[in-house]
């Protein structure tokens, strides 16, 4: 032990203990990554179900005279959501340097983009619901399940970011040594963001292929 005792001491000394400076990955990081992994699998199952049902259905897709989904709104939604990860990254880097203002303003920017995304999605629903609902046929069921489930994730992500923002507005929450919650929420947001690309491809682009 004596040969390693010094290493242990270095790792548990007063200075090391008072920080969360990365040594390896922290338990929280692994926890969030595993959670995102299982969530991603859930989306994979839903998107897999989409393709399964589509190819079992037959040549005309969408069925029942439903038009292929229009692309403009989803592309605008993509343009809003994809860049929304950038302010979070910027905010997270900021708090790693102890800059609270960057955390606050970055979170606020992302929340604005996220809310815009949801508003656009609501506008799109208002349009599509006139043509088909989730009880119309299996296409409608899939469309609303997948986009709705993703929308719910955006809402959860926004709640997390809003909660972070609320906490960061108070002094004494985050700093260069304490920002694990920020990073975990950021991981989740990036996931919600990336999974949208898969949905864009599956729900909006693939029927045109």
């Amino acid at each position, binding site marked *: *032990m*004596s040969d*390693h*005792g010094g*290493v*242990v*001491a270095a*790792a*548990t*000394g007063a200075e090391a*203990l008072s*920080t969360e400076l990365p*040594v*390896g*990955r*922290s*338990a929280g990081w*692994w*926890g969030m990554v*595993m*959670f995102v*992994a*299982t969530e991603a*699998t*859930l989306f*994979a*199952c*839903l998107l897999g*179900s989409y393709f*399964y*049902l589509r190819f*079992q*259905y037959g040549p005309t897709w969408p*069925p*029942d005279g439903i038009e292929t989904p229009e692309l403009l709104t989803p592309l605008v939604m993509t343009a809003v959501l994809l860049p929304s990860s950038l302010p979070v990254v910027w905010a997270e880097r900021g708090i790693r*340097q*102890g*800059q*609270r203002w960057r955390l606050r303003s970055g979170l606020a920017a992302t929340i604005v983009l996220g809310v815009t995304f949801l508003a656009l999605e609501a506008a799109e629903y208002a349009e599509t619901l006139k043509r088909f609902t*989730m*009880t*119309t*046929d*299996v296409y*409608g*069921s*899939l469309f609303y*399940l997948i986009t709705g489930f993703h929308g719910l994730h955006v809402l959860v992500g926004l*709640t997390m970011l809003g*909660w972070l923002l609320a906490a960061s507005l*108070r*002094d*004494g*929450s*985050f*700093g*260069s*040594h*304490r920002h694990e*919650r920020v990073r975990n929420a950021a991981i989740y947001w990036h996931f919600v963001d990336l999974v949208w690309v898969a949905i864009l491809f599956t729900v909006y682009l693939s029927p045109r292929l």
Partner: protein
Amino acid sequence: MSTTTTPPPGVSAQDLARLAEHWAERPTLRGWFSTVDHKKIGRRYLVTAGFFFVLAGLSALVMRTQLARPEAGVVSPQEYNQLFSMHGTAMIFLFATPMLFGFGNFLVPLMIGARDMAFPRLNAFGYWVFLFAGLFMWASLPFGAAPNNGWFAYAPLSEEQHNPGLHMDVYALGLLFLGISTTAASINFIVTALKLRAPGMSLNRVPLFVWAIVATAFMVIFALPALNADNAMLFLDRRFGTHFFDPSAGGNVLLWQHLFWIFGHPDVYIIVMPALGIVSAVLPAFTRRGVVGYPLIVLSIVSISIISFGVWVHHMFATGLPQLSYSFFSAASTIITIPSGIQIFAWLATMLLGRLVLRVPLLYVIGFVVTFVLGGFTGAMFAVTAFDQQVTDSYFVVAHFHYVLIGGAVFPMLAGIYYWLPKITGRMYHERLGRWAFWLVFAGMHVTFFPMHLYGLFGMPRRVYTYRSEPGWDGWNLVSTVGSYLLAVGLLLVLVGVVHALRRGRPAPPDPWEGDSLEWTTASPPEPYNFPVQPRVHSLHPAWDERTADSVGAGATADRILSDGRRTLITSELDAHPERAVQMPESTLMPLVLAGALLIFFTSMLLAWYPVAAVAALAVVATIAVWLWPPRRPDEELGVAR
């Protein structure tokens, strides 16, 4: 009642007192509800899963009584169908996995030399959700609203149109609710095993049981979402008129089966794998040597957990899919028996090269080998598509999976109960009582289930509430029923043995078996902080290793005693190099509150009280927000730029 050893010389009485002060939880009612101690939570998992096992077992006894004679009228078909559905669902979801997770909860931190799980509060939350989800599902039975579509819930029979009432809503919501617990526990196991291993426990020194639990947890992470997606779609179909499984509106009934078995086949290994881990953990103590072929067993654990995702279609060999896909899945299902074969022969080699100490845990391991090998043969037979098509959905398959699940999971669990009872309770069991129980359980198991092979081959389909007298069915069914009573008596004796140990058992020494893993270096039962000194691990069998023992002796340094707070060591993922000590969370009521809010949410969804559900959902969000709200710290500690 703890019979502590003399503390290791490396730790002073002062340190011990401080450790006790930081880790002890008050024995109040509030303390009972707010505990985050992995040992208490592990025990609760074991007891609760045991309780659900009794309920599911009693259901089985009623079924066997009904089937003892042809055309009996013990229960109505509606009752029988609920009983067999609850039997399967509960045994799989509410007994097998939670029971093994109970072992995992109690043992993983002890085996890796940690003081708790990585996320103790999440752990408590997982337990409460498991308890509430289990009660949620069982509570439907007295109302005659229990799931009645088998544990597999095939569409379209599970759809509203064919199955009105709450039955399948209970199933879908109950399993979604329970899935939260299983997922949380799995993430916790993975992170605990990755980050909390004692210094020196590099990946090639991780106990096989921990490997098994971690592989299981990974399977849960990637398999359970398929079941969740399935159940979400089923619930939407039933309640909100979607058409996922409705062929008349473009849906497809086979989607249910695909998703179900993409989860369902890995789930077989989710159940069996940790049990095989128990076998590997129990053997060294009773063969007086380490398990032969550690790297081969690790390899087989990892390969099983991967291949198990590629065999699901063998559950659908009679659905008329293309032959090409059958030949592929037949090959994959054949291949997956190889890693199990390796493990069996590694254990046999261990026994052949060791010295056997024939105590009750080893008896169960031997019973396991006999039974599991037989179940393995029939399992390999099911990989042969043509044969599968003949015997699937007959009593032959019922025989098969009871051999696999009782032989492969329940026997190891029983071995584990006897093996770790001294550690868990601090009391020794009664050996003779244990032997009686073993022989009754072993005989009862084979008398019940061996005949099922026969009447399955003789053409008796499964899931029938009664049958017309057919020679070759009647007699053997009666034999099965007699066997099931025998099995029940044996299991009752196991329970009697446990209660007897608790009441009358003589106090257990810290290491009654001279076991090889770290839990045997703690007190029986372990102190709240598990290890006065977190050991430094030097081999695969740390408890047999003098250098590891020395590491908690006179040379122990303060950085592994960590008595100045509720702290444990974080180490690196692969080599277990010490990284830092972390503060562990205190006990709290939050997990219970959150689980309670979820219970209200799922109950009101079931009863279609949607406004209540919405309020409960808000309560869930609010509870999480409060739970995780960052504590206020001074700027110097946070590191804030000016």
